[in-house]
């Protein structure tokens, strides 16, 4: 009997089919980044709550942003690029200046008694402030805290703060956060600049 070869299937259109699928996925794909700055909003206070005690002026770092996207930091016009350094100096108060925040001795686990500054950063923006500037300010303030924490982690544990976060060394992270607690308070916005 004559043996016949099975006819070869033409695979030329395979590429077309694959291209079709490829185009479909190209169109529907979104390189969606799920990145963001996590923040916690303050809970609404019941109206009969007693007012919190006032905070001393020297302990508050006032950042104001107006509708022209200008920054007023502690009463002085400031560029966004200088904000981080100013915030760092305020939080740390390395020279124990009279105008910068007071310090209180706190017993921090792993570190023992440490002087912790009573800093609070107050952020207030106008209704006309752009969201871009707001995010930049938030980012710079977060950077100020993170850099201080980074320095402390290097000094005390010899590893970077980020490594601690990655390895989930909760005790060490907690201790660092206790020395540099992130206290950013947002005041209710004002509507001065119109719109």
């Amino acid at each position, binding site marked *: 009997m004559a043996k016949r070869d099975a006819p070869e299937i033409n695979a030329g259109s395979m590429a077309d089919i694959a291209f079709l699928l*490829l185009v479909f996925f190209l169109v529907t794909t979104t390189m969606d980044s*799920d990145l963001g700055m996590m923040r916690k909003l303050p*809970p609404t206070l019941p109206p009969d709550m007693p007012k919190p005690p006032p905070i001393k002026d020297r302990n508050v770092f006032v950042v104001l942003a107006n509708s022209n996207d200008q920054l007023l930091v502690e009463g002085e016009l400031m560029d966004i*690029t200088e904000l981080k350094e100013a915030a760092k100096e305020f939080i740390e108060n390395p020279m124990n200046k009279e105008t910068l925040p007071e310090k209180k001795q706190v017993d921090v686990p792993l570190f023992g008694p440490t002087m912790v500054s009573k800093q609070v950063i107050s952020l207030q923006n106008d209704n006309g402030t752009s969201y871009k500037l707001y*995010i930049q300010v938030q980012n710079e303030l977060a950077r100020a805290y993170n850099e201080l924490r980074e320095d402390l982690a290097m000094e005390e544990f010899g590893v970077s703060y980020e490594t601690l976060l990655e390895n989930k060394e909760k005790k060490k992270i907690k201790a660092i956060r206790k020395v540099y607690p992130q206290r950013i308070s947002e005041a209710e916005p004002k509507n001065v600049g119109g719109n």
Partner: protein
Amino acid sequence: MSKFKKDDGKGDPAISTASLPDIVFMLLFFFMVTTVMREVDLKVKVNTPEASEIKKFKNKSLVTYIYIGEPTDKKLGTSSRIQLGDAYADVAEVGAYIETKRGEHDEAEVPLLVTALKVDLGTKMGIVTEVKQELRKVTALKISYSTREGGVVN
């Protein structure tokens, strides 16, 4: 001039396209793996700002998105609008929207829910603050400002 004589008869051999499907399939698999189906049709233009101190969501199913930006439909003007789900919405509807989203989750998960604000960088803070106040009213206190990973301002 025999040196420059062309090969007579035979043309260039055809390039084999047999491996073309393989190449295309490779690309195809890459896109299939990285693809995330768009969850909603964006009706507002959102170009998120850049920031460096950012975190990735641990669990994407716990995130509710609120979009704020200029409407893509030019007829609606250029003032910023809020988009909840697939439709434009008013600030007052934010609370109800969060409540319905909560209903879709298990009760134990409710405190873990995060509201992600995807806001265009040109938006004025007024509308963003109003949304934040609404979120406070329904005690959806965990929020995230969606940003792109990017440079710092120096």
